[in-house]
């Protein structure tokens, strides 16, 4: 236990965790439907039967229903997706040793969305072939494969085309991104009106699809990837010193690249599958985290995860409460919150240099 805490003796970790909790409670409190303590206590009374008898007709009335089936899953999904994006951003920046790297800039999320768009347009005609369970998990799997293939292509392509060149990697990522956008554009051209509706949900990005089937799934993926990342943090630190140095320190660089790519693809693919493309958090969260705790991966990974969750939570809460009873696309707020933060950060850094 002592070892665990030593790793996070920086107060930032506990502070961010506390902030995520406080913001989470605020998010649960605010929304179109007014919820008071009576509804909470009713929910707790029913909690047991809800958790262990899935699929039974719910005994909940209006407000309690909203709380349990709409708001709580949505807040949890926001936290998990934000954390996934923050963590994958930190991993990508560590892996490619570049502060500009970000799953959406390198085309990883576009790859995921592209695979999903192709699935929607090409397969949905035969959708009756698959059972309901298969259809729920088909899109996450396909978009994971899309993200994974993009990561692999980046890894292999960049080292083959321009070995060791960061610019080459970024340019390849931008090329892949453009390619993915083109394929998505072609899909929207081919799509029927009905398919277009599900496509637009994807490319805009929204947490409106939250439910109790996908939230635990995403949570398990996130926790598993995070636990694995903790064991690899020191190796990523070594990689930060350069590939040759890392290799001489005993890090199996090619294997590390493969495994980190798989993890990034897993995080980005699954969150894209459930919420569509939500940009900017993967880029901004690691930068903020680095300003607070420095470049040590052991501290950077959990902090950028928490800050990603915090940003996502704030953005989504604003998106769904400002124009009640309507809703604003969440992507607007992630950029609106993240942009000024990044500028503030640059401003602070400038002072330090002076």
């Amino acid at each position: 236990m002592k070892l665990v805490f030593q790793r996070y003796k920086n107060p930032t970790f506990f502070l961010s965790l506390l902030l995520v909790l406080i913001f989470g409670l605020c998010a649960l409190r605010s929304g179109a439907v007014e919820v008071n303590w009576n509804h909470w206590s009713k929910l707790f009374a029913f909690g047991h039967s809800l958790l262990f008898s899935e699929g039974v007709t719910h005994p909940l009335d209006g407000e309690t229903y909203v709380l349990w089936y709409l708001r709580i899953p949505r807040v949890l999904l926001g936290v998990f997706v934000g954390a996934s994006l923050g963590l994958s951003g930190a991993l990508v920046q560590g892996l490619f040793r570049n502060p500009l790297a970000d799953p959406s800039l390198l085309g990883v999320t576009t790859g995921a969305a592209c695979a999903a768009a192709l699935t929607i347009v090409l397969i949905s005609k035969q959708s009756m072939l698959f059972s309901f369970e298969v259809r729920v998990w088909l899109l996450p799997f396909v978009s994971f494969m899309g993200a994974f293939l993009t990561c692999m292509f980046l890894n292999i392509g960049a080292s083959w085309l321009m070995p060791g060149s960061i610019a080459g990697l970024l340019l390849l990522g931008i090329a892949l991104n453009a390619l993915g956008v083109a394929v998505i554009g072609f899909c929207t051209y081919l799509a029927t009106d009905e398919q277009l509706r599900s496509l637009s949900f994807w490319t805009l990005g929204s947490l409106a699809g939250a439910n109790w089937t996908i939230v635990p799934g995403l949570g398990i993926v996130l926790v598993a990837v995070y636990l694995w990342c903790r064991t690899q943090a020191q190796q990523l630190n070594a990689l930060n010193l350069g590939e040759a140095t890392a290799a001489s320190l005993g890090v199996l660089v090619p294997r590390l690249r493969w495994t980190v790519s798989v993890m990034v693809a897993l995080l980005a693919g699954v969150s894209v599958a459930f919420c569509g493309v939500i940009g900017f958090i993967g880029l901004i969260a690691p930068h903020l985290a680095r300003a607070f705790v420095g470049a040590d991966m052991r501290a950077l990974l959990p902090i950028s995860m928490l800050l990603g969750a915090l940003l996502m939570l704030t953005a989504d809460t604003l998106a769904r409460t400002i124009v009640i009873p309507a809703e604003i696309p969440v992507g607007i707020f992630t950029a609106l919150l993240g942009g000024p933060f990044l500028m503030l950060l640059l401003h602070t850094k400038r002072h330090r240099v002076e």
Partner: protein
Amino acid sequence: MRRITPARFPETLAFLMRRRALSRIGAIGALAFSQQIHSTSYPEQRQRIVCIGGALTEIIFEMGAQSCLVGVDSTSTFPKEASLIAQVGYARSLSAEGILALAPTNVIVTEEAGPPGVLRQISAAGVGVEVLDSGHRYEGLIQRIVRLGRLLSFESEAAILIERLNLEWNQLQASSLTHSVIVATPRRVLFLFAHSSSRLMAAGTQTGAHAMIEYAGAINAISEYSGYRPLTPESLVSARPDLLLMTDHGFRALGDLTAVLQLPGVMHTPAGQHQHIIKMDASLLLGFGPRLPLAVKRLKSEFMDAFIS
């Protein structure tokens, strides 16, 4: 007291910076917390309807059932009184919680409404979600009125409305016979849907615009594809439209008549050479609501003016 050595100073500064940034995060949190929770209480009514779809809202107003409406979407712009009802946003990106907060007994939507997950959540909350098809036919309009009348228990009002519409529609059909004698060959009309001068779309078959053009006694200049597709200058010229039909909004997006005529290819069509370009309100032209006979009548007279002169 311990002196701050110069070597330590930058670190302290950095720490202060961090604290400042953190306090800013805290300020946003406080903002979110202090935000007033939106709530409204309504007097008890026998039915509370959230209606998604401009044409459906129009039908409800025509039946005199507007007191049932507690929410409409952003396409419900006619009649003007509809804008006084709570707006639940764009029909394709609805919010489940926002709609449930209006405590509706029924949510009435067109096929366009979504996302599907949100509609599923609403119906799982015990609120009836009624999906009315949006077929671009007169018969479909009558079916929608019948269903709405039954849903809202306004059957007799619905029957009166249908009777009135049938009367108008039959008059229109009778007059079209006389008109077709005057216009010997059917004229080709192209519906141009413009966001800006660089994004032009044309209506193919199986669209609302196609049905309206046929109802008004002309033929759609585009029959090669269905749905809306981007229009190239070449396909515009080869479609040989005698008349360009546009929405008010699209016309304004382009500017004025000269701007439309200057679009590539327009001057090489009969429509451009004779300046046969007419515009119409989108919700009237493409709404397929109770103003359908009126829209067809107006379109027809515009066609007549253009072709006979």
